[in-house]
C-alpha cells in the first residue's frame, strides 16, 4: 500500500500565456537516480516545463512535488536550495567573471572554503576547463560556455539536475564528452535532459518522454519511442526521412 514517494511528481500541471496553453495537464513522475530524456518539436512545452520546475514561471494550475514537498510557485533560489539545479537553454553564466569564479560561486553556497576549493578543482577537471580556469567566460566558445554552466550546476551538488539542450553548439567530440559526463552524474543523481539531437539521445537515453503541444504524447524506452508512428509524425518523421 505504502507507495514510495517519487523524487519528482507533477499533477495536472498547466501553464497558460493568455490564450496559449504552453503546458496542458502534465502528469510527470521521476524516480530517484533516474535519467529521463524529454523530446518534442519546438513549442512542445519542454522549456516551459523546466521553468515551472525551477520557479522561473509560476504554473497557472496544478502541483509539483519534490520528494513529496510542494514547490509550485516557490522562488527560484528556494527551489535551488532544495536541490534542483538547471542548465538553461540559453546559457546563463556570469560572462564577466572567470571560469573558476563561476564554479566557485556555485560551490561556495553549501561548503566551507577548503571544501569549496577541492570541489571547484574537481568540477574544473570534469568539464575539462582546468587550463582555462582564469579566463573570462564571455570569451569562451559556445560549447565551452555550455560546459561552464553544467559545471556550475554540478558544483551546487543538486539532487535533481535539469539540462536544457546541453549539447547545442558543441562539436562531435564535445558532445561525446557531455554524454560521458551525464552518464557519470547519473550514477548518483537523477537527471532530466531536453535534447533535439537524436544521436545524443541514443547515447544516453533509457526512458524517453515525448512532449507535443504542451501535453505528454507518450513515455517509453528509446527504441519503442522511435518506432512509434505518432512520434514520427509529430517530430521524428522529417529527420528520419532526411
Amino acid at each position, binding site marked *: 500500500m505504502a507507495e514510495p514517494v517519487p523524487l519528482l511528481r507533477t499533477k495536472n500541471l498547466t501553464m497558460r500565456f493568455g490564450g496559449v496553453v504552453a503546458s496542458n495537464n502534465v502528469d510527470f513522475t521521476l524516480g530517484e537516480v533516474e535519467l529521463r530524456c524529454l523530446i518534442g518539436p519546438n513549442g512542445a512545452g519542454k522549456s516551459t516545463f523546466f521553468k515551472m520546475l*525551477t*520557479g*522561473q514561471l509560476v504554473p497557472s494550475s496544478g502541483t509539483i512535488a519534490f520528494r513529496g514537498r510542494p514547490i509550485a510557485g516557490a*522562488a*527560484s*533560489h528556494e527551489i*535551488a*536550495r532544495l536541490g534542483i*539545479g*538547471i542548465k*538553461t537553454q540559453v546559457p*546563463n*553564466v*556570469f*560572462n*564577466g*567573471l572567470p571560469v573558476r*569564479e563561476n564554479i*566557485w*560561486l*556555485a560551490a*561556495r*553556497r553549501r561548503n566551507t572554503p577548503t571544501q569549496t576549493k577541492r570541489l571547484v578543482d574537481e568540477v574544473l577537471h570534469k568539464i575539462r576547463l582546468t587550463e582555462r580556469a582564469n579566463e573570462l567566460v564571455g570569451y569562451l566558445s559556445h560549447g565551452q560556455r555550455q560546459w561552464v*554552466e553544467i559545471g*556550475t550546476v554540478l558544483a*551546487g551538488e543538486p539532487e535533481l539536475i535539469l539540462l536544457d539542450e546541453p549539447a547545442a553548439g558543441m562539436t562531435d567530440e564535445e558532445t561525446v564528452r557531455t554524454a560521458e559526463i551525464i552518464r557519470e552524474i547519473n550514477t548518483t543523481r537523477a537527471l532530466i535532459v531536453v535534447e533535439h539531437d537524436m544521436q545524443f539521445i541514443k547515447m544516453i537515453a533509457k526512458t524517453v518522454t515525448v512532449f507535443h503541444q504542451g501535453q505528454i504524447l507518450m513515455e517509453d524506452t528509446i527504441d519503442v519511442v522511435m518506432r512509434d508512428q505518432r512520434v514520427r509524425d509529430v517530430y521524428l518523421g522529417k529527420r528520419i526521412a532526411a
Partner: protein
Amino acid sequence: MPAVVRGALNLAALALAVIVLVALPDLVEVFDLMQITLFAAMGVLALSLGFIWGFGGILSFGQTAFFGIGGYTYAVAAINLGDSTGAIALAICVPAIVAGMIGYFAFYGRISDVYLGVITLTVTLILFDAVNSTAGDEYRIGKAALGGFNGMPSVPTFNLPGDPSTVLDPTQGWYATGGALIVVYGLLRLILGSRFGRIAVAVRENEVRASLLGYDPRIIRLAVFVIGGAIAGLGGALYTNWGAFVSPTIFSLSLSAEIIIWITVGGLGTLIGPVIGCFLIQYLTSQIGSQQTFNSNLILGAILIAFVLLLPKGLIPTLRDLVMKAARALPRRGTAIEASEKLVGAK
C-alpha cells in the same frame, strides 16, 4: 592579473595613501588643505555610488538623498548632543535605515533598474522641496532649527571622540576626512573580497543564474544598497563638518548628476576610479570657478560627452588595459630578442 600581484598593488596603494594623508599638511597651505578636505568628503560620496553602481549594478540617481540625510542628521544630532561622536554614528545609521526602506520596496517589489533610478531621483527632489520649506521657527528638532532654504549655520564641527571640549583644527579635520576616505576604501575592498562581495558581483553579472544557484538576489541587492546609503551618509557628515553648515542644496540635482560624471570619468567597476574622477572634476570646477572665463557646467558637460565617446570605460580601466597590454607584449619582445641572439650566434 594574478591574485598575489593584485594584493601587493592594493597594499602599496594603501601605504601611499596613508603617506599622503600624513604628509599633506606640511606640503600645502591651509587654504588648499581645506579644499582637498572637501574633495575627500566628496570622495566618500563617490565611493558610495561607485560601489553600488559598479559592483552591485544599481544605478541610483539620488545618492545625494542619503548624502543629504547624513549631512542633516549630523547637524541636528551635533547641535542637540553637543558632541560629534554620536552624531557621526547617527549620520551613518539614519541614511542606512532610509536606504533599507526604499531598497526593500524597490528590490522586493521587483522594480527594474530604470525605475529604481527614477524613484531615487524623486526621493532626492522630494527631500529638497521638503527641507527647503522648513524655514519657519516651528520646524525644529530639539534645539536644532532646520532653517529651510537658509540652511543650518554654525553646526558644531568634529571633536575628539567623546571629548566635546577639544574641537579639531583644519589639519586634524583633514586627518579625520582623509582618514575616513581611506578607511571606507579599505572596508569596501574587504567586502568585495569576501563571500558576500563576490556574490554581489555575481548578482550584477546575472541575476537569473545567481538565483538558480540558490542565492536570493533581492537580499543581496538590498544589502549593497544599504551599505551604499551608510557610506553616503558618512560623506554627508564629513561635508557638513567641513563648512560647519548644511543647506538644502545638498539634495540638489546638479550634485546628483555630478557624481555620475565623476564615476564615468574615473571608471565604473573600480573603487579608485570614482575617487580619482571626483578629485579631478572638483579640482577642475574649482579652477574654472576662480577664473570665471567659462561656465563650469558647460565644461562638465563637454567632459562627460568626450569621455562617453572616446574613453567609455573611464580613466582607470583604460589605463589598466594599456598596462596589461604592455605587460603581455614585453615577454614576447624578450623571446624575440632571444631568438635574434640565437640567430646572430648561429652566424
